[in-house]
């Protein structure tokens, strides 16, 4: 493991293999809470935070509990329970110690349990045989990629409201088309994978 490999992991997670635009992980919150820019930022920050923590904890659980006791077939069940408990724990912790942040993130925290990007990053870490530091870096930068995507998308969507479009495309379909065009532009980064 070197700085270069960490750099290429983060570049990959943020731009080249963006969680939303090329892996389709976490689309539900991406499309659901992107109507306004400030809520989108809140959701993105919360997801980044949880993804970083979740990849650290699931990696440890996988390495020291599941592999050690030969329980790998329980992976999905254990991971989702760990994530649900983690989200609950973060919620209680923030409520007690950082009430301002808690009110800012508010309703988004519990929603994160069922965000497939979080469970996805935990499973992908194991699949690609990352070590502990690589997993954490991948989790955090994956979250940053999500944050970037949702912020860009929300700002485009705020303008979309004023544009005219065919009646049947109003609302959700036009948002999906917007997301599709953004995915197209993110495809431009795919050449970067040759580097590093």
């Amino acid at each position: 493991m070197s700085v270069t490999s960490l750099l290429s992991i983060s570049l990959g997670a943020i731009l080249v293999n963006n969680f939303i635009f090329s892996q389709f992980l976490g689309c539900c919150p991406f499309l659901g809470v992107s109507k306004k820019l400030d809520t989108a930022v809140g959701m993105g920050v919360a997801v980044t935070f949880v993804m970083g923590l979740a990849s650290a904890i699931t990696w440890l659980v996988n390495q020291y509990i599941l592999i050690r006791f030969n329980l790998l077939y329980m992976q999905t069940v254990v991971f989702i329970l760990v994530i649900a408990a983690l989200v609950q724990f973060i919620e209680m912790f923030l409520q007690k110690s950082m009430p301002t942040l808690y009110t800012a993130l508010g309703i988004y925290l519990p929603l994160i349990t069922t965000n497939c990007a979080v469970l996805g990053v935990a499973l992908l870490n194991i699949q690609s045989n990352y070590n502990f530091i690589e997993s954490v870096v991948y989790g955090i930068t994956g979250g940053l990629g999500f944050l970037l995507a949702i912020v860009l998308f929300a700002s485009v969507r705020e303008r979309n409201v004023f544009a005219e479009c065919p009646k049947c495309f109003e609302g959700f379909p036009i948002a999906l088309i917007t997301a599709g065009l953004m995915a197209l532009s993110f495809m431009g980064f795919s050449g970067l994978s040759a580097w590093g």
Partner: protein
Amino acid sequence: MNIGRQFKEGLVTNNPVLVQLLGMCSTMAITTSFFNGLGMGLSVLIILTLSNIIISAIRKIVPDKIRIAMFIVVIACFVTCVDLSLQAFVPDLSKALGVFLPLIVVNCIILGRAEAFCYKNGVLASAFDGIFQGLGYTVVLLVMSVIREFLGSGAFGGGVFNGGKGFQIFPEQFGAKILTMPVGGFLCLACLIAAMQWALTKTKNKKEESKS
């Protein structure tokens, strides 16, 4: 209990993907070939039906506060069963679906139906709800994968028909490659939802006209 109405709701008027807008991630991600679409659709159908039955059976003994956690555990168990069986019996499919197979746990369709339907209704009604909602999901996946596979690479039914090779309808180099890429998933789903909205408003207008 009205099975006919449930059938119509699951497939058309309350379709999980096109109307309730649930479970988008897997819908867009894995519909690159007929084989994947069919496999994913059937897996979700099975898991949804089984978890619906169990959840509606235990709904009276589960405390209100921890119901979501209980739902997730039940769903995760069935997902693990299906995941392991696919790994054993259909390894190609398991490889093609990759991380999206365990991710069925967090597929909003299953948790959404558990919360919105099974928690309030009996076992039999929930079982039918699972079957019909699962069918609705499968149909959307199949339509999307047929469109994307046909326009994207000129093939039809790769991995299922014609001894696994599928039918090549027009040469592959003439296909719109973009449809098999992530962008195609977004665009294709947008067009399907738009078509659905158009059809629903049209039938609604017709009904109102005939009333007046």
